[in-house]
C-alpha cells in the first residue's frame, strides 16, 4: 500500500493507493496512529486509488473512527471510493456510521462546519 498525506487546516488527508486487505491494513493503521500521536484529530481517507477493500480494512477504519470520536472529539471520513469499494461500505452498514464523500475537498470541508 502506498500512503501519502497532505495536511490543511488541521485536517489530515490520507491518500491510499493499492489493496486495503489483511496484508496491508496494519500499515494504514500504524500510519494513522502515528499521526494521532502527533496531535491530529481529523482525517479524510481518500480511497480513489484503493482497488479493493476487505473486512480487515473496514476494521481499521472503524477502530480508528471510534477512538477518535471517543477520546479526542475527532473524526474520520471516507472520500472518493470506487463503486466496488463503496459497495463494501454499504453492505456492511458502515455508510450509516461514517460519512462518505464524493471528493476529498468536500470531505475536508465537512469537518470545518
Amino acid at each position: 500500500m502506498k500512503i501519502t498525506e497532505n495536511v490543511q487546516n488541521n485536517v489530515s488527508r490520507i491518500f491510499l493507493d493499492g489493496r486495503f486487505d489483511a496484508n496491508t491494513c496494519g500499515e494504514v493503521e500504524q500510519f494513522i496512529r502515528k499521526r494521532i500521536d502527533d496531535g491530529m484529530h481529523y482525517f479524510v481517507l481518500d480511497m480513489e486509488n484503493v482497488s479493493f477493500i476487505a473486512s480487515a480494512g473496514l476494521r481499521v477504519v472503524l477502530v480508528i473512527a471510534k477512538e477518535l470520536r471517543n477520546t479526542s472529539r475527532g473524526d474520520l471520513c471516507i472520500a472518493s471510493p470506487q463503486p466496488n469499494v463503496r459497495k463494501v461500505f454499504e453492505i456492511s452498514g458502515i455508510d450509516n456510521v461514517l460519512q462518505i464523500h464524493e471528493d476529498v475537498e468536500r470531505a475536508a470541508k465537512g469537518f470545518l462546519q
Partner: protein
Amino acid sequence: MQQSFEFPADTAVLAKIGEATVAAGRSAGFTESEIGDIQLAVDEACTNTIMHGLKEDPSRTFQVVLRWASGEVEIFIRETGDPFDPTEVPQPDITAALEDRSVGGLGIYFIKQLMDEVKYRIDEKGMKTLYMVKRGAGCR
C-alpha cells in the same frame, strides 16, 4: 476450466489470489460488479483460513481451486486447521451506531451475502473444505 493453487498461510498471498479470482470471473463472463463480489468472498474466506485456521504459520499451506464455466464460478478452499463451520455463524448486527457496533465479524457475513451457495465439510482426516459458487444474473 479449472485452476488449482497451493499457498502458504501468509497474507502476502492475498493479492495473487485476488488476481486469479478476477481472471476467472472475467473468463466466466461476469460483470465488474459481480467480479467484485466474488473477489471479496474469496478474499474473506482465504483471510480466515490464513489467520484463524492456520494461525498465520507460513510453514502450513492451504489449497484454492477455482472452477469456472460461462456464468458460473465455483471456489474450493481446503485447509487442516481447527474444525470450524462458518455456515453456522450468526449474522452480525450491521445497523448499530458506531459506539455500540462491534468491530470484526464481517467476513463470513460478506461471503453469505455475496455468493449464491456456501457449503462446509470436513473429512475423516480433518481436511476442511469451504465451497462457494456465484452464478451470473440469468443463470440462477
